[in-house]
């Protein structure tokens, strides 16, 4: 076990936090500021929230002798991303009353609300709780929202696999009752024994931990970008078990060569036996807990632990802890990574509609009343709401007799047309939140990509490539929230208006892209792409994906 001297400050905060309570209860009541205590900022993440401020307003507010416009972003824990219509209705109202009103679907299949003022946080959490929703461990050094392939129409046993997401999430929840005390005003624990936590103890994990479940052949969950990826192995409609992949993670830091994006390594297979499966998952987490780097948070994700100690060591240590060895990985293959827009039907005859929601932002604007439309659909009670890891949404499990009703509403609000007319690249793109709320953003992302895509559409049209499903992803910084390193074309913000351009990722998400050019502004980006598209059109082998072509052309910095 690595001797963790000079622990990072976050470690001190966690251990001194009395089960993630810190001084939250007090600083929530501080009348002078919309912010919470310095240490509490780290702790509130474990409760699913981030303290943020509107970066667009800093200078102006300072001149007015007003503090920054502090607010909170809350992220829900929705394993597998499934909401009932009733829950969606609650969400709709809460967003309207307490936050900016925009419902943001994230790349991990859950939702975020922004702009909650300090005094609205408790009411928000209480309202969510009334709807059977919570934000526990949606952020923080714990297991995050467990993602799972979201397309029930694609596999007869989807329901069975999907069920694991919630069960894994539950197994890895912290035991502390702080959330219930602070936000839901429940009785303070007298006997602290009740919250003794053999898994997280008082240190929790060195860093965030992410688990995703993929169901081949569609890899829309980007299963290999997780610390722990489970790939369902299915043999003629029977779930055999899971290939276990560890060490995925995309975060990196400009100018820090020790940090890098990494796809998970498949280390074996575990049969679909609850005991074996859950023990495996649990111990993979405990090894990271015990061996993860706790002094340098930039190097504490499982991927670095794995590269430091080696895959073989990790497998042995895992076997030692579980008491059994993993089987050889089973063959599997992914052939695509996308949401299936429009109407689809599953084996049982249930219907599914996937509308196009740009960057997962559900709101009404002058062009489209998307938010109202979804609300109306939820009110019919005829469709479930399944979020996807592409920041998307599936109106799911609709009975044959209700299809026309739903379709009528989609028609009325122009959602059908909106979805059909959106270009292939637009529908396959992802942009992270970035400005104005994300404190780490170096450049715009979700506020800018839509415009850039517009220009790129122009270029593609010029080269008659408009129907190519090229996967384009953008983030405002190298942290990788929009998984740009797993895109065919990746843009990573370096400064306002400037982006690094990455090329050569594959279409299925099994190969990372590579840095091609740095610090490009819009004009340079478009100049480059215009040339590349021209060559692609001219020299591609039939059916060759843009990502594969780029690699073959060695379009990357040596």
């Amino acid at each position: 076990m690595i001797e963790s001297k000079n622990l990072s400050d976050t470690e001190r905060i966690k251990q001194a936090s009395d089960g993630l309570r810190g001084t939250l209860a007090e600083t929530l009541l501080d009348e002078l500021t919309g912010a919470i205590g310095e240490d509490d900022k780290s702790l509130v993440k474990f409760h699913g929230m981030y303290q943020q401020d509107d970066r667009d307003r800093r200078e102006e507010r300072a001149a007015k002798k007003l503090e920054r416009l502090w607010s909170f972003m809350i992220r829900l824990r929705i394993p597998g991303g499934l909401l009932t219509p009733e829950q969606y209705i609650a969400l709709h109202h809460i967003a309207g009353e307490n936050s900016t009103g925009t419902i943001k679907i994230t790349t991990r299949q859950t939702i975020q609300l922004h702009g909650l003022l300090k005094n609205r946080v408790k009411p928000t959490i209480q309202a969510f709780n009334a709807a059977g929703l919570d934000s526990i461990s949606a952020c923080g050094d714990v297991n995050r929202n467990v993602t799972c392939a979201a397309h029930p129409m694609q596999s007869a046993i989807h329901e069975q696999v999907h069920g694991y997401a919630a069960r894994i999430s539950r197994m890895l929840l912290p035991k502390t009752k702080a959330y219930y005390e602070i936000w839901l005003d429940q009785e303070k624990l007298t006997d602290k024994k009740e919250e003794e936590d053999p898994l997280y103890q008082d240190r929790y994990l060195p860093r965030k931990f992410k688990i995703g479940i993929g169901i081949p052949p569609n890899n829309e969950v980007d299963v290999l970008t997780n610390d722990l990826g489970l790939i369902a192995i299915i043999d003629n409609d029977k779930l055999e078990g899971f290939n276990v992949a560890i060490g995925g993670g995309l975060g990196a830091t400009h100018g820090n060569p020790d940090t890098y994006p990494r796809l998970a390594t498949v280390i074996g297979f575990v049969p679909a036996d609850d005991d074996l499966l859950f023990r495996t998952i649990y111990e993979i987490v405990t090894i990271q807990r015990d061996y993860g780097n706790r002094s340098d948070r930039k190097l504490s994700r499982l991927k670095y632990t794995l590269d430091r100690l080696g895959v073989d060591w990790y497998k042995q240590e895992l076997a030692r802890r579980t008491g059994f060895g993993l089987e050889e990985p089973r063959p599997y293959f992914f052939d695509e990574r996308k949401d299936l827009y429009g109407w689809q039907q599953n084996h049982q005859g249930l219907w599914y509609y996937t509308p196009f929601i740009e960057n997962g932002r559900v709101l009404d604007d002058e062009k489209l009343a998307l938010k109202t439309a979804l609300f109306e659909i939820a009110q019919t009670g005829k469709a479930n709401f399944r979020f996807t890891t592409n920041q998307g949404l599936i109106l799911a499990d609709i009975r044959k007799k209700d299809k026309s009703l739903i379709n009528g509403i989609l028609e009325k609000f122009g959602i059908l047309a909106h979805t059909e007319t959106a270009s292939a690249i637009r529908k396959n793109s992802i942009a992270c939140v970035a400005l104005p709320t994300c404190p780490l953003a170096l450049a715009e992302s979700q506020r800018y990509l839509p415009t850039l895509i517009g220009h790129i559409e122009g270029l593609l049209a010029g080269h008659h490539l408009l129907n190519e499903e090229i996967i384009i992803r953008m983030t405002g910084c190298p942290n990788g929230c929009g998984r740009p390193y797993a895109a065919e074309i990746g843009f990573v913000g370096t400064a306002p208006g400037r982006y690094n351009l990455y090329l050569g990722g594959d279409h299925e998400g099994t190969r990372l892209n590579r840095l091609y050019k740095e610090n490009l502004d819009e004009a340079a980006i478009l100049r480059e792409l215009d040339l590349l598209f021209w060559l692609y059109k001219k020299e591609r082998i039939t059916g060759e994906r843009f990502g594969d072509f780029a690699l073959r052309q060695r379009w990357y910095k040596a």
Partner: protein
Amino acid sequence: MLTTPKIDLMKELIAGSSREELIWLSGYLAGVVSQGTSTVSAATVAAPSAAVPETAATPLKITIAYGTETGNAKRLATDFAAKAKKKGIQAKLVGLEQYRLGDLSREEYLLTVISTQGDGEPPAAAKKFYDHIHQGGLKLDRLKYSVLALGDTSYPLFCKAGEDVDQQLQKVGAQRLSPLQKCDTDYEAEAGKWFELVLQRLNTAAAPAAAAAVTAKSIPPATPTRPAGKKTYTGTILANTNLNDRGSGKQTHHIEIAAEYVDYQPGDSLGIIPANPPALVEAIIALSGTDANQLIPHRSEEWPLAHLLHRKLNIVYLPERVVKKYAAIVQQEIPETKIGLLDLLKIYPVKDARQFHAVLAILEPIAPRLYSISSSPEAHPGELHLTVARDCFTVNGETKYGLCSDGLSQLEPGHTIEFYIHHNTQFRLPAPDTDIIMIGPGTGIAPFRSFLSERDSRGAQGKNWLFFGDRHFTTDFLYQTEIQDWVQTGVLTRVNTAFSRDQKEKVYVQHKMHRHASELFAWLRSGAHVYVCGAKQPMSVDVENTLLSIIRQEGNKNAAQAEAFLDELKESGRYVKDVY
């Protein structure tokens, strides 16, 4: 022909008399002359010797009562009391708020120094006394009195409160020792003379024999005093920021003014006489049938009509009393309401230029507007800061802005403004080690920003507790970052805020005071001073009632005891208000 003292007497008499009084006097004197004897008149005009009870031996007892808002009347009264004592007179000094009204009937000699506030009203502290003498059935024929009225000629009703008291006392049978003396803001000289005259009259009244001797010494050579007027300054705007954030329903401007050598202290206010909008002036001239440059007499000066309407006369929103006079001039029925001159001229036009000139004669001066200074001479040398709420109101659907606050809110860096300082010696920081509780919602924060800056830069040791409130936390928290810094650095010991519209039920400063009742009372017990600034209605009233209920509850006192406790604080200057 007359001896100096006699000349002075006459001068004083004339100076202190209204036109009617003079006419009456001249008639009276004529009568006296025709009768050929002066003795009778002496008795009636001056204090009649018949009414003198004391023998020269028993020392003379007088009461000097003052009614003050910002301390001037008190200071004068205190000086007078000291002077009187030197002369062996038993002078009792009392603030009108403490004056036991029962004593009035037993009182022999009452000297009143009283200022005028608001729109011709008595100071809050003198209200009880003022109302008492105005109620019917009072008879005070034993009383001999004289009134010194403090005022400011730039207000429409100059020294109104003093005038009322002087006339009312006479109505109820009391006799003037000496005529009413009205003083402008440079009151020292006239006030001094008034008192000399009073002393002299007291002596003649009390001990006729001694009179000559005393007065001969005591009366200074007659140097005719020409009023110097207020000291006015010109300042240059350095900055003007609206402190309210986007989306707020309010506009509160933090204005920084560069002005060297301005003599002020924390607690003082800045006075401005706003100019009328040029557009309005033009519109009025257009209806007046008079040339814009025609010279019009005004207060012993002449001004071109345009200038007069722009800078001197209140034309924006005339009080009922002026509307009434207007109606008389144009000989039309006009409902008694406040209304702007332009509207009057439109609805009830003047017949001709002559009528218009008559109207000019009844218009009142533009009243000064005061703004609490929110800077501290110590912390912001060479600067004055204001905290100005842009007064916004709707008149049948149309949004309008207050004349002065609107003008101030429009000022830009580089612009200059003329102002004077209105000193408020009642509203002062206590000794550096004394604790203070400041209650100042909205623009009421202004003087407390001054207090805190001052105490900060002087390193005063006293504890400071601030109650602030406004509508919304995110948009209306005036000086939030400065307040946070003062908390960080320990200058502010406690802060409690009340943002009324951030939740369903309204929350105001007084609610926060109640929530911290026991600490608040503990502070009072240990000698803290309490300051209230901001809206008179309803804030300052609610706050006072809350203070009383806290005193009742925490000091387990009954209503009367609580009142007494608070009065005690008032008297010892530990509970002061600057409300508007």
